[in-house]
């Protein structure tokens, strides 16, 4: 069962070996760093830049070439840890990276993907996957040309009918299935398949966000046959990806094996991947230090823990934190008085010390931001952000004045939230106490806390939101528009809806950015939510892992087709 993963060689930690490995690792890292600078060569295909949707891209296979100083090495099993079992096997029905990493990214290909070498996951980083090129003959049509001869794991050949069946499944899932991201494809009017390698997507309106969504691992393409026979891709996981499901023992491990017939010649380098389900963070950290994983992520993987891993592993690991789309906002229920008064929401923003929040809650692994990912393609500048009350420095005097002006003398606030958000909730409670808001925290699990927010049964709530990609449509449709799935504050503004609709159809990136920033500023002015900080995603990587970069999203760059293990 476990014989092939090679962990036996690592299960006994030898300090001497670790130190020796660390020294070699440093040398390897230097070579890797050198190599990463010039590894932009693509394996095949040439870009076709047509229309606004293809600012770059169109190259089949985004795998990077091996660094010149070090030849890629075949073989080995890449081990990772998951905190729990995937909630389901079909990622189209799931909303967690725990499903995406083992069951979507390595097993399926999308039409397009984010370039694994470019961690920002920006629009211009979109590159080919199953589609060798894509073009927009007009504003409301996108034509994808598929790579010919791509084989599914069951031997079937991928055709445009498979793409059509999968995308239609997402838009209109069969009875008994859920499709949490159907809204991302809402602009699609119909899908046509003039021939086996051409997919024509007809849009109801221009939709520049379409490619951003399609590039995330959530939009893997399964086979039409499988969808027809099983109603979903879940049970069998017949994809076209570089790895196939070999074994899955619930609560124990997931094992993937190399797909020898993968459509990218010479890939993957790895023989397989293995994911171990380890809930307890302390035990997982010990296992990491002991060398049982090659890659590691955990939201509470603090800088001090990262230092500990680097030190106690004898330098076998490097650790970093990557800016992300994950943000920690405070919702304020405008259905209830006095939160319907923008001055009260503004006062709450002024009471929150963002720097302290980042320092206390994230040990420094965070950054200030509004709605779009700070430093990303769309966000307003930091200087502009600081113009909004509270986003520069807290101002308790002004906050109290605003409350007074709103007629609030003393205020008790009920804060239901998730148990795992406790540190953030406690910090907000302390900070709001300084302006006379007495918060009572009600901690519970997701299944209990979230319905309270959805049903408007709260005053304020400290929460965490993660998005697949840093995309304006995804962001504002999540928390800002009147119909946003998480507009739990219920601050509805027709002007916001109008600006949202406007930016959503602008195909020129620069022009759209202006509209997005106008929208972000308006949303910030309304204090729909008060964002305390954006999280940085903390990772660790064994220095033996080559050709892998952590991205700003947990839902991209996890296919591992071009990753190899050195040493």
């Amino acid at each position, binding site marked *: 069962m476990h014989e092939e993963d090679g962990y036996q060689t690592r*299960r006994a930690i030898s300090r001497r070996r670790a130190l020796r490995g660390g020294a070699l690792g440093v040398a390897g890292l230097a070579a890797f760093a050198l190599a990463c600078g010039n590894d932009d060569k693509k394996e095949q295909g040439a870009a076709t830049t047509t229309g606004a949707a293809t600012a770059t891209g169109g190259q089949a296979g985004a795998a990077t070439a091996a660094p010149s100083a070090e030849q890629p090495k075949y073989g080995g099993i890449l081990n990772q840890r998951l905190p729990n079992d995937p909630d389901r096997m079909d990622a189209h029905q799931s909303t967690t990276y725990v499903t995406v990493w083992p069951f979507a990214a390595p097993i399926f290909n999308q039409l397009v993907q984010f370039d694994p070498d470019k961690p920002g996951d920006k629009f211009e980083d979109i590159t080919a996957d199953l589609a060798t090129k894509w073009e927009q003959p007009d504003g409301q049509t996108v034509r994808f040309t598929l790579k010919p001869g791509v084989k599914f794991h069951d031997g079937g050949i991928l055709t445009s009918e498979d793409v059509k069946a999968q995308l239609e499944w997402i838009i209109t899932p069969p009875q008994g299935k*859920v499709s949490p991201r159907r809204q991302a494809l809402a602009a699609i009017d119909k899908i046509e398949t003039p021939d086996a390698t051409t997919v024509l997507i007809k849009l109801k309106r221009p939709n520049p966000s379409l490619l951003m969504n399609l590039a995330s691992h959530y939009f893997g393409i399964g086979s039409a046959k499988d969808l027809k026979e099983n109603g979903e891709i879940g049970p069998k996981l017949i994809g076209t990806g570089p790895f196939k499901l070999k074994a899955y*023992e619930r*609560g124990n491990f997931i094992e993937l094996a190399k797909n020898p017939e993968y459509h990218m010649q010479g890939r993957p380098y790895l023989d397989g991947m293995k994911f*171990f389900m380890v809930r*307890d963070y302390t035990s997982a950290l*010990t296992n990491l230090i002991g060398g049982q994983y090659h890659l590691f992520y955990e939201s509470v993987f603090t800088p001090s823990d990262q230092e500990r891993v680097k030190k106690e592993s004898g330098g076998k690991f490097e650790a970093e934190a990557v800016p992300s789309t994950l943000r920690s906002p405070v919702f304020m229920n405008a259905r209830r008085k006095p939160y319907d008064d923008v001055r009260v929401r503004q006062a709450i923003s002024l009471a929150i010390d963002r720097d302290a929040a980042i320092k206390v809650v994230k040990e420094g692994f965070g950054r200030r931001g509004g709605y779009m990912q700070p430093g990303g393609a769309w966000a307003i500048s930091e200087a502009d952000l600081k113009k909004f009350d509270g986003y520069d420095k807290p101002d308790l005097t002004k906050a109290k004045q605003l409350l007074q002006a709103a007629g609030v003398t003393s205020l008790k606030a009920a804060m239901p939230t998730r148990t795992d958000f406790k540190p953030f909730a406690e910090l907000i409670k302390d900070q709001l106490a300084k302006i006379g808001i007495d918060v009572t925290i009600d901690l519970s699990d*997701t299944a209990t806390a979230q319905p309270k927010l959805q049903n408007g049964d709260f005053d304020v709530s400290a929460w965490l939101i993660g998005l697949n990609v840093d995309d304006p449509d995804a962001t504002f449709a999540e928390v800002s528009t009147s119909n946003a799935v998480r507009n739990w504050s219920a601050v509805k503004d027709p002007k916001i809806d109008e600006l949202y609709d406007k930016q959503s159809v602008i195909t020129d990136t620069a022009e759209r950015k202006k509209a997005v920033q106008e929208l972000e500023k308006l949303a910030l002015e309304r204090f729909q939510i008060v964002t305390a900080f954006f999280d940085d995603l903390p990772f660790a990587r064994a220095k033996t892992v080559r050709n892998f970069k952590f991205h700003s999203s947990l839902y991209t760059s996890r296919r591992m087709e071009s990753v190899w293990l050195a040493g």
Partner: protein
Amino acid sequence: MLSSPHPRAGPFPRGLAALSNGKDKERLTAVQRYVIGRVLLIVPTIIGVSLIVFVIMRMLPGDVAVAALGGGQGVSQEQIARYREQLGLDDPLPVQYAEWAGGLLRLDFGRSLLTGQSINEDITNRLPVTAELALGAILLSLVIALPTGILSAVYQDRPADYLIRLFSIAGLALPVFWIQTLVRNLLLPKYFDWIPPPGYARPWEDFLTNLEQMWLPVLILGYFQSAVISRLARSTMLDVLREDYIRTAWAKGLRGRAVIIRHAARNALLPVLTLAAVQLGVLLGGAAITESVFALPGIGRFVVDAINNRDYPVVQAIVMLVAAIYVLLNLAVDLLYGVIDPRVRLA
């Protein structure tokens, strides 16, 4: 003259022998009646448990549909409502109960609301892991607790007794989670450069790896269980050692070992056996913390996750399973009483 309550203090199998003795025919019938009565009692017990767990799970706040949709990230309330409908959570409670109970009668626990997986399959995969841990821990605890409990009583208030009591009280006082975390994640890695291999290997597939993965949780859990059992063994032994028939045994000039083992320990065993069975039931119900710290894919972790996610059928299935295990264990212990102590059988 005082006499031992054991007319013929013979070996344990005497009780069994009596069951097939023709002269005991009338008593045998009584025993049979007793066994049948106990077995029949299982039915209302299980029905009662099923009703209680079903109602309690529905009374808990929270929504499985939200949990099943990954906390509802990016999911509208309409989608959640539709999903609830698909899961049958909008059906009247009696209908939901009837459907579930019907499945139980067919020994079909149904499917997880969260994952759609067969609960029978999940239990089949996970129960052996917990059973290995629980049985290992209980056996080890008995191996530790019986001699230490007996010795502690025999050498009451002497150095050996103090040492054993210290050993047992430490096991009672220290939090098991703390010790497990400390030993697994600090002491062994730091001072012995050792951590258990990842995952869980089934013993029949890879015995040595299984041994490497299981010895530590079994040892720690066994020690903590032994602390409870050892304390009870000591106290019951002390009581028994003060009985008149033990004094008589000493007065008859019996050898110490015979008095302690054959007369005293045998009688002191009954409550210890009961406690061990209860402890085994508790562990089989899920040593959730141990399974979490050692990343063992057992029943404990499964049920904790299911409770957090309001995965009703999974929680209900495991509670029913544990209830059945308890009932059967208690029945087995009651029957064993008759084997160990003929007085019980005669009564």
